[in-house]
């Protein structure tokens, strides 16, 4: 990086290469993370694709933030998901029957899975916003606590504490058998 804080073209190419290298591993994780928020497979896949395009266009803004690139991708995913939810809420276009986890299974199994999915997402809503984000990023995004701390601007100790409290609360709500 030069004295003006601007990254050279070869430096930008390094970032582009790094981003391309993350695609295979993180596309699925980001899609899962988004899916928990939007409850629609196709939209989750679309948004996951848009995350990488948005990242590519915004690479210049990445350099100063000091967050690992995968954490930065989840920040973008979070922002795009919030935008999506605002749009769909305003336009009321999300079909209720679009929350389909498994398309071609036995209809009874599919219905049961959808009910269970709804039960879990309802339980997640009872967590604090930060606890929910920790669980989403850890369980579905597959980030480490340190990376989650980078995304949320928290120390990893605070993330671990929120994580334990969140799981205990979920367990209490869902009444998981042990």
């Amino acid at each position, binding site marked *: 990086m030069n004295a003006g804080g601007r990254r050279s073209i070869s430096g930008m190419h390094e970032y*582009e290469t790094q981003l*391309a290298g993350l695609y295979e591993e993180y596309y699925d994780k980001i899609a*899962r993370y988004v899916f928990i928020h939007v409850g629609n497979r196709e939209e989750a896949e*679309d948004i996951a694709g*848009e995350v990488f395009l948005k990242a*590519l*266009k915004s690479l210049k803004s990445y350099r100063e933030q000091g967050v690992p690139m995968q954490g930065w991708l989840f920040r973008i995913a979070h922002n795009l998901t919030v935008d999506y939810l605002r749009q769909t809420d305003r336009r009321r276009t999300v079909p209720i029957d679009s929350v389909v986890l498994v398309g071609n299974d036995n209809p009874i199994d599919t219905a049961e899975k959808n009910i269970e*999915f709804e039960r879990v997402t309802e339980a997640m809503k009872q967590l604090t916003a930060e606890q929910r984000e920790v669980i989403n990023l850890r*369980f579905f995004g597959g980030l480490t606590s340190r990376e989650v701390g980078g995304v949320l601007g928290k120390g990893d100790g605070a993330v671990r504490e929120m994580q334990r409290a969140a799981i205990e609360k*979920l367990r209490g709500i869902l009444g998981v058998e042990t």
Partner: protein
Amino acid sequence: MMPDDFDRILDECIDRINRGASLADCLSDYPAYSEKLKPLLQSMHDVQKTCAFTPSADSKRAARQRFHAVLDRQRQVSTPSSFFRVIPRSAVWATIAVLIVAAIAVLVIQPVLNPLTVVPSPEGNFAFLVSDEPNDIGDFESLNVTISRVVLQRTGSLKRLEFTPETETVDLTQLQGEQSQEIWRGNVPAEQYSHIYLYVSEVMGKLGSTGQIVDVRLPSNKLQISMLFEVTDDKVTSFTFDITVVATGNNGRYILKPQIGESGARQE
């Protein structure tokens, strides 16, 4: 045991499970904590299992192609030509500043386009057409598809614009092969787009053999094509959205699908 110790152990187990380790492996490594760890890790496992979702290979592949197409284009633009290398940096920045001012001036005098809903215009820079790739269309005497709206999504953004077709209902039996029908023409912002969605409100199919009205369904309430295309101000971009009807077996049911290979944009 300090609470922070337990939090660390739980955290480590979650990391290991995320990397593919089994719950039993984690518990066996921490026998002193297993009674407290087990219910929490079991909850994690149950929540992950309930919400398991694997994106389709097709979507991932299409997104990868779009990503690399934009990456290639970005690299071509960002690589300075030898011409720029020999010009002093100050001159390059001065030129860029002039271009930015000129671009702002152009934007200010351009008519403002509503970013959400665009209106039709016979002189527009974008035409939207529908066509039918013949598969099982021969079974039908008529197959009327009513399209309530069309949505375009810009590349690298969730910003979408939409329009209502001027011709809402098309009969796919009349649009086979090279045949197509323009259902909207108007001005859309000159940008690159990555997705196009067709929202279908009604499908009415009449079989040629019996005259019976049959059930024709969509996988959801919309048909979607993911494809990069660019709209410019100086040319008319015509996008043809190809739809095909396919029998789902011998049960008399049919589905409508987008035919990506036959769809696409061209500029005149």
